[in-house]
């Protein structure tokens, strides 16, 4: 409890180091929800954020899925954008320079349908300056393996990471999918294969239909669920991941407020990415950053690193002396 804390008047130190990646603060924006960053420059100063993860980039431009690509669900949304993007060439030509000019810390989310595509992208992006890190989106289907997502199999995940690792010395983030039996297993595989950092979670596989027309709400039938609805799932995934690996973890999923971001930080995420919230409130990421700062002041936290990972899981019985002492009951599953 912060009761004993003395509020700080000096600005709290929000810097975080995620292995080789050093950030001014722990608030990033999530891929696909912040465009190429420039879309938001009317709303906020991009250089204030810890970093910007741009829309997933592939070697060649991709047109994306036919519409409808969106559907709303309780406290969430489904998307099946289909990884539409301008391709790495146009990204480097049209998007990267103005984004750099705005002083943004730029992380590029990469995707491919084969291990080779990932590796080649990494090599192209390593050749340019102004990129702080790469984030590997392993939720893409492996076209050579029947479309099963790279991120659902530890061996495939490791292959992608190792191939990218071999082609770049940029800090490497692997973005994990929640749609697996054990996220810890994939996390370990990605870490062992050379990922400096893990980020989780990508969207949760989901769908919605219209009972009247009897049709799926997305042309793609199945899409990815994001937004507040998935926050408790994301938090559990981060909890399992930080306990499975020794590398830094970035928390993603349903973060709308500073309180949400703090949940991830206290569980052990070294930084967070704000996704769907950007779509609803273009200034959400900045609000969250300011809220974290306010929280630190209020709680007398001088450096955010003193807060990260300090989850207190011990049972607290303030009146334990109130009767005969007995063993705390064993934890039972749900």
């Amino acid at each position, binding site marked *: 409890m912060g009761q004993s804390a003395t509020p700080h008047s000096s600005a709290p130190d929000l810097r975080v180091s995620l292995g080789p990646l050093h950030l001014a603060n722990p608030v990033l924006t999530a891929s*696909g*929800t*912040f*465009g190429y960053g420039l*879309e*938001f420059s*009317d*709303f906020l100063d991009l250089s204030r954020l810890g970093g910007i993860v741009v*829309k997933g980039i592939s070697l060649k431009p991709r*047109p*994306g*899925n*036919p*519409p*409808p*690509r*969106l*559907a*709303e669900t*309780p*406290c*969430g*949304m489904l*998307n099946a*954008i289909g990884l*539409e993007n301008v391709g790495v060439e146009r990204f480097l030509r049209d998007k990267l320079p103005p984004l750099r000019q705005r002083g943004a810390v730029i992380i590029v989310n990469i995707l491919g349908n084969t291990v080779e595509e990932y590796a080649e992208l990494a090599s192209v992006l390593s050749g340019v300056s102004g990129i702080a890190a790469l984030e590997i989106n392993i939720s893409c289907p492996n076209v050579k393996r029947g479309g099963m997502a790279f991120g659902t199999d530890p061996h495939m995940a490791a292959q992608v990471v190792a191939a990218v690792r071999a082609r770049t010395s940029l800090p490497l983030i692997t973005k994990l999918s929640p749609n697996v039996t054990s996220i810890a297993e994939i996390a370990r595989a990605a870490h062992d294969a050379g990922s400096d950092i893990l980020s989780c979670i990508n969207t949760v596989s989901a769908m919605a239909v*219209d*009972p*009247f*027309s009897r*049709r799926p*709400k997305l*042309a793609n039938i199945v899409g990815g669920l994001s*937004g*507040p609805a998935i926050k408790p799932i994301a938090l559990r995934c981060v909890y399992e991941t930080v306990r499975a690996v020794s590398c830094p973890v970035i928390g993603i999923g349903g973060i*709308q407020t500073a309180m949400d971001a703090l949940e991830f930080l206290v569980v052990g995420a070294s930084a967070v990415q704000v996704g*769907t919230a*950007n*779509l*609803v*409130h*273009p*200034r959400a990421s900045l609000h969250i950053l300011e809220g974290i700062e306010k929280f630190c002041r209020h709680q007398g936290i001088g450096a955010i690193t003193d807060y990260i990972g300090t989850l207190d899981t011990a049972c607290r019985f303030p009146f334990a002396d109130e009767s005969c002492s007995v063993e705390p009951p064993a934890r039972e599953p749900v």
Partner: protein
Amino acid sequence: MPRVQEKAKILESHKEAEGTYRLVLYAPKIVPTARPGQFVMVRVASEGADPLLARPFSFHRLHKEDGLCEILLRVVGAGTRLLSQRQPGSSVDVVGPLGRGFTAPTRSDETVVFVAGGIGIAPLRALLDHLLATTHKGHPERLHLYYGARSASELIALHDLKRAGVVSVVSTDDGSAGERGTVLDAVQKRWNASSQMPNRLYACGSLPMQVNLARWVRRRDIWVEMSLESMMACGIGACLGCALPAVDPEDPQAQRYLHVCQDGPVLDPKRIRWDKVQPLIARPLISASL
């Protein structure tokens, strides 16, 4: 033309027709740079995160001096129902001005036709107001409004436009007001036989109306702009969700999309692959009680 997010105060709320409401919003940061055909994203939830997403609404009227704008909304689902129930005095979260507005005529001698199907009157009214105050000041008779709805009860009043001298033709599917038939029937009746085509045509309405009108103007080669719709999450070009199938002039068979919130909502219908457009899902109003 910077886009901003602001808490807009709802000053007035009026029922204008069956299921149709007009809200007057005080949005002093957004209104000054707003243009007809542009839109705002309005958050509908006043508490909690359900419904999560904001909803797009066109500027219906702009009162720049006062920092006011009006939106006209038709209740079709939970979000529009909530907005229609909002009390004056409360505030809504608004982002705007967004998208590409109408390209206004440059000369006063242009004959301009407006085709509004149902709630499609919403953005066209802002453009009409604009032309009446600029290019067509003193020449309202060169502005022709075709306004149709299913039934008289769904029409909003247009007395002031008529008084201002705009040529107005009202139609209803059931003949309960104006000419019987679709708004397009009315347009065709007037112009099919005419030797002189209008210089410009602006339209907004249902998907079938859009397609039929696109077909009609294509054969006649009229300059036209339509305000189109698509599901939106952000309205600012960030999510890529609002795709519409688009024509790639270099490769007509290619799978291409444009994004209504950025490339539109006002678009030349020739840019749309109408053969690939799926209609938005429309639910009967009974669904709200199930």
